[in-house]
């Protein structure tokens, strides 16, 4: 049974095993960013140097804070949209003045305030598998044997009769994406980790477009794990 072990689930305390919360790298990132981050002049200057103008957006400040406090954690567009709801920019003071001559911010303080320490479960649920689906949208379905491979994947996913009947590449892709969207929406496979859920679409697109067998093997392993009807937090992947 070693191949189908879910180490992460086994390591969870009994309360977590009972409540089955969704695990996400974003919670880790959110936890590492302090409750309040002060934006002083050097920080302001550094952030605006990354962009084009002198205005500061919440996204650019969050990107800066994440890069500073949790380096090596690239954040996707979807994740950033979700993270934006967890922060707000605040001013203290009547008139905040940005002075490039004296290199100071005076008249008050600018701060990035964290509103939540963990991501809302519903937000994480809605994000399950979304990045993998994006990848599937742009995957190449026209290589030799890719239609056969698409059929194999659809047979494993089930409820794809319409896609199995057609020979149209475009329609097959449409059915596949629709099925996966439904699968994640209802969380039929009980995947409780956003990164693992995102990998599903990636594995499928790698197998269909390039015939990557290790990707297909991972997909099959995950599918076997769903038969236990238990929440899935992690799996042993084939490299």
């Amino acid at each position, binding site marked *: 049974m070693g191949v189908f072990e879910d180490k992460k689930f086994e390591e969870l305390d009994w309360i977590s095993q009972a409540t089955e919360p969704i695990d996400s790298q974003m919670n880790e990132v959110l936890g590492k960013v302090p409750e309040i981050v002060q934006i002083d002049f050097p920080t302001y200057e550094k952030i605006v*140097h990354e962009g084009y103008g002198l205005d500061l*957006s919440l996204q650019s400040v969050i990107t800066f804070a994440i890069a500073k406090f949790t380096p090596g954690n690239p954040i996707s567009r979807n994740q950033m949209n979700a993270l934006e709801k967890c922060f707000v*920019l605040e*001013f203290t003071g009547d008139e*905040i003045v940005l*002075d490039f001559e004296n290199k100071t*911010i005076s008249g008050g303080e600018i701060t990035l305030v964290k509103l939540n320490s963990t991501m809302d479960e519903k937000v994480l649920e809605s994000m399950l598998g979304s990045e993998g689906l994006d990848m599937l949208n742009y995957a190449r379905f026209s290589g030799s044997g890719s239609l056969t491979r698409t059929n194999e994947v659809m047979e494993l996913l089930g409820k794809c009769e319409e896609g199995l009947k057609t020979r149209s590449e475009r329609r097959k892709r449409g059915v596949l994406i629709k099925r996966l969207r439904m699968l994640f929406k209802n969380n039929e496979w009980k995947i409780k980790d956003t990164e693992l859920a995102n990998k599903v679409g990636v594995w499928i697109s790698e197998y269909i477009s390039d015939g990557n067998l290790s990707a297909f093997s991972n997909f099959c392993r995950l599918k076997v794990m769903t038969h236990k009807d238990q929440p899935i937090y992690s799996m042993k992947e084939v490299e």
Partner: protein
Amino acid sequence: MTKLLDLTENFKISRPVFCLQLDSSGRNIRANTSHPKHIYRPKPIEGDPLSELVCENYREVFDVRGGHFQVDKGEIANRAMQQIRGSISNFIEQNLEMRNPRQSKLYRWAYRNMPNSSEINDVLVMVYKYLRSFCNADNMRGHDADHLKNGFALLEAIMEKYEQ
């Protein structure tokens, strides 16, 4: 053009100090770079139409990386020059006593075929200065018949000289 460039020589820049504003959603901080706290705008020499024109075209741009404002004096002079060339076509259209001045040879030359060399530009700057001495600044409509006659004679002479 040289005259216009000379007028830009003493132009200064605004100090790079900005009042920051946070929008109500708490998602954006705005530093209005077109309205710094200590804004500099050049003051034209009273009664000098060229100085007025050059000051009107003053534009400074904030260099985020350098952290200071900068002005491109050549660009300001160029913009003023383009305005002068446009004003000359406008002068002909407004003052030439024809049913349709746009059909005149002078207008078509001024509008389409006027050369763009530094020599003629210097001449046009002086002509513009003269035209503005008796024309309304907004629409280049002249008030003095003798001056108008002179103005057209000058433009026709310039056209003849530069057409060849």
